[in-house]
């Protein structure tokens, strides 16, 4: 028996591919944003440029679908995908649901019924509006989202850097869904393309704010950032909301003046909401790219540090 030998291989044993045990969050974010951007551009283009006339009987169900579209897309590309990986993020669904509940019970009433920034900021100068929205709506929403993430997600659930991002974005999707629902409740007769513009902008503002805040949390738990980084990121996230809200209303309501060949001012060529669509798309992509870059830098720095230790 001792003569038994393992077979001699001609080729060296094939190394098995390393299985990444977590869901790739940036991939999901890219897909979710892409789907929303395509729906927004498609719907807006069809209604504005092609002249698609949506039957009035279809408006209400279509609006209901559009309001929940970010949540549905998130459920498909994030939550369901999470179930299929070896090490899922267990609290993701709970965080999403709690975020929606807290937004509905605390966030929305606090801003719309108590602070009411639209009542006293709408006629202020641009700078005052940015500051006003930052220190009221912005800080309220981001602070609520931060406290929620802080209390619901335990520190030991942060295993890799993108865990922080995944939980923060789940909070953002839950919160923005309630805000969109609130908009539809107050303006039930809104046109679907305008509703989609509003839904995507709200979603993008919250995604941007939460992604920035997640960077502060990530550096705190898994990086080596200063203790002042997290409060600084909270302020940046609030400022994003503060800048985006006046810009959103300003861009959608402003006429675009164009000169035609004769040099006569005309506003007939470009719909005035076109800037709003461009702004929504920019808000959907630019902050995410910047935060992805920061995450990448943080990871590289960590790798370099480990390599240096070895």
């Amino acid at each position, binding site marked *: 028996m001792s003569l038994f030998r393992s077979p001699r291989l001609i080729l060296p044993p094939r190394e098995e591919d390393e299985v990444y045990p977590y869901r790739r969050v940036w991939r999901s974010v890219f897909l979710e944003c892409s789907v929303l951007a395509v729906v927004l551009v498609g719907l807006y283009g069809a209604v504005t440029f092609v002249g698609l006339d949506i039957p009035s009987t279809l408006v209400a169900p279509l609006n209901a679908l559009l309001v929940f579209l970010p949540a549905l897309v998130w459920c498909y590309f994030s939550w369901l995908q999470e179930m299929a990986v070896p090490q899922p993020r267990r609290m993701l669904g709970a965080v999403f649901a709690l975020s929606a509940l807290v937004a509905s019970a605390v966030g929305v009433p606090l801003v719309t019924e108590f602070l009411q920034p639209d009542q*006293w900021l709408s006629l202020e100068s641009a700078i005052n509006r940015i500051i006003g929205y930052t220190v009221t709506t912005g800080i309220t929403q981001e602070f609520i989202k931060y406290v929620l993430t802080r209390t619901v997600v335990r520190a030991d659930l942060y295993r890799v850097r993108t865990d922080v991002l995944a939980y923060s974005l789940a909070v953002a999707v839950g919160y923005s869904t309630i805000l969109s629902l609130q908009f539809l409740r107050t303006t039930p007769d809104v046109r679907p393309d305008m509703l989609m513009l509003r839904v995507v902008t709200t979603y993008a503002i919250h995604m941007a704010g939460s992604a920035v805040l997640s960077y502060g949390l990530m550096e705190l738990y898994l990086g080596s950032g200063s*203790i002042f980084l997290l409060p600084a990121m909270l302020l940046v996230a609030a400022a994003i909301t503060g800048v985006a809200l006046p810009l959103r209303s300003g861009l959608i309501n402003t006429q675009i003046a164009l000169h035609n060949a004769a040099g006569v001012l005309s506003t007939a060529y470009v719909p005035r909401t076109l800037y709003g669509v461009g702004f929504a798309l920019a808000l959907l992509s630019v902050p995410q790219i910047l935060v992805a870059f920061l995450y990448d830098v943080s990871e590289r720095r960590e790798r370099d540090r480990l390599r240096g230790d070895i």
Partner: protein
Amino acid sequence: MRVLFKRLNEASESPRQRWAHVITLIIGLIVFTIGLNIRNSALTATTVYENLQAGILAYYPRNWLLDTQGEDYVFRVRDMTRSGFKTTIQISVQPFSSETTARSIADRLAFTRARTYTDYNVLSTEDYAIRSDLTAQAMSYTYTMRETSAFLQGIPDVVRGQDLLTISRGQALIITFRAEASVYESEYRRFRQFLRQLSF
């Protein structure tokens, strides 16, 4: 709540992480307080209006639209940010003789408005202390207001108003406050602030 605290205690956090959270909470609350302060300042901010002919010095809410060209009023400000009926404060001046009383002016006003406004209804007439040394006759009423253009097909707004009638230097001063009935109570504090600062 107990579960929440248990959860917080379970979390194994370093002192650095704990301090970062404490600082974040403090900064968040400070910024929110600043926001509340700015809000209160903006809501109580005023612009001065002076009419030497009528002898009025008023501080009206900033950003409200001032109109002094009306036929039946010398001063009117409206909150143009309101959708539907615009919250309004206005002052009218009427000549006053020795035979006239504040009550008779109020009755005449009610009679005129009943013909002008739809569903005009006087709720109450009572004394109102504008200041410790000045009492006015207060008349509360409601009526419905339709859009000027029939093509807009809007639902009428229920408007609630209050007239304060007082006699000053041989003339009757009618200070009017009107707002949509649903926001009347919340908007009334602006009128109280206006009255506190009004000189005539």
